[in-house]
């Protein structure tokens, strides 16, 4: 705690990824200017990655890939690395995190969800030889990194700032944390039942992430849920953006929000999203099998459940 108590936290925030990117660095007061410069440069790098990976820009590398007609398309290293993680996330989530559901999501957002897909071939893969990579996919497959890129970006940005004793990169809610011995971070978990515009919202709970005893610790914290990004269909029903790959429809789930602590932000994001899509009955078993260090789940009944051992992470 000495470094944190005697030092200060440098913060740099900027609009990004449809929300806010915030970089926090703990440093001694006499190095605050250097920390501020590093935070700003890390944020600029994040913007570069976002420009390559977003589907909201037709000139992005991802959009170029999705618009290509060929089955095999060469891709640049950043997109290849992000897609490699997306493929790994698909395996580790037991198929629940699926990057090929762009069309189903767009249809759901338009208010006209697609019919449950027949056995549609959605296979794809990334082939890499040295620095050259190629994406091979079945015809018609379009990829979406909206669900996996934020955690991946947060981890990568935190790696850029590894020389500082304490770093937290908040990529619009998915947070990558580095903490040297003596450094700890308190991270609020937003309560979705409160109005987002409240001046001083009371968090659902607060997590405490400490540096190791003699080693630098890395964590990831991410939250996924169905209560923020949702809308009403033409028939009046309410729906959300998390597509269940087993049905092709917005997931029927009793989990309003899941927050996960894992070794990395990308893993935490993948696990949290999978838990929400699975629903409480399957999610508890999945969380126990996953790499989650802690998990807090808010059910639509108002109950809050947590993985055993989560209490040691609460502030």
């Amino acid at each position: 705690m000495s470094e944190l108590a005697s030092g200060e936290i440098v913060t740099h925030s900027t609009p990004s990824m449809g929300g806010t990117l915030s970089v926090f660095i703990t440093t001694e007061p006499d190095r605050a200017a250097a920390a501020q410069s590093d935070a700003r440069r890390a944020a600029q790098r994040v913007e570069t990655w976002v420009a390559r990976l977003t589907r909201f820009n037709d000139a992005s590398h991802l959009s170029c890939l999705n618009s290509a007609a060929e089955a095999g398309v060469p891709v640049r290293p950043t997109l290849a690395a992000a897609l490699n993680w997306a493929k790994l996330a698909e395996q580790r989530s037991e198929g629940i995190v699926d990057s090929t559901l762009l069309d189903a999501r767009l249809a759901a957002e338009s208010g006209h969800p697609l019919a449950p897909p027949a056995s549609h071939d959605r296979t794809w893969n990334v082939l890499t030889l040295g620095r050259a990579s190629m994406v091979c996919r079945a015809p018609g497959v379009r990829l979406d990194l909206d669900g996996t890129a934020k955690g991946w970006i947060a981890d990568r940005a935190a790696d850029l700032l590894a020389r500082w004793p304490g770093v937290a990169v908040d990529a619009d809610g998915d947070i990558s944390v580095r903490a040297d011995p003596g450094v700890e971070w308190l991270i609020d978990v937003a309560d979705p039942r409160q109005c987002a515009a409240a001046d001083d919202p009371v968090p659902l709970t607060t997590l405490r992430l400490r540096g190791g005893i003699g080693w630098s610790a890395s964590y990831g914290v991410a939250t996924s849920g169905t209560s923020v990004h949702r809308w009403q269909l033409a028939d009046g029903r309410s729906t959300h953006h998390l597509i269940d790959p087993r049905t092709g429809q917005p997931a029927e789930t009793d989990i309003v929000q899941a927050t996960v602590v894992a070794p990395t932000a990308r893993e935490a994001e993948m696990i949290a999203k999978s838990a929400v899509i699975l629903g409480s009955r399957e999610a508890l078993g999945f969380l126990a099998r996953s790499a989650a260090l802690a998990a807090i789940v808010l059910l639509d009944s108002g109950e809050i459940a947590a993985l055993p051992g989560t209490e040691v992470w609460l502030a």
Partner: protein
Amino acid sequence: MSVMRPLPPLPRRPVPDARPARTGSRQSKPDARPMRFVYGAGAVAAMSVMAVSLVQPDFAATADQTGATDPTADPNAVEQAPPTTVQHVTQYIQLKPGQTAPPGATVIAANAPTPRVVVTHNAPSGPAAQPGPRQPTPKPATRQSGAARP
């Protein structure tokens, strides 16, 4: 006048044998380490002592602690048992067909979620629960991404 007499013949020189002549009894050499048997016996004895000290039971721990056999013990003294802490661990078993739960057991339906969750406190605290000096300001917050749509 001296008379020259022939010298007697020289004794026949023995022909040297290539191999030394065998003798009936070999002469034993002196023992270079005359104490070796003593040293060996001492080493075995030392090993035995160490082995016994390792494996012998703790007689002090198993001895009567109440002092009943000690004639100097105060017979009116009240025995002070050390405080013990019992930790109850709830374990769940799955009943097989035909089995009944023991009296007092909580029975959970088979289709209910696995009872491996613990309920945490809700909406904790306020500022008092968070130590002030360690509080980073501003504080990162994890939340759902995206924005609500009308």
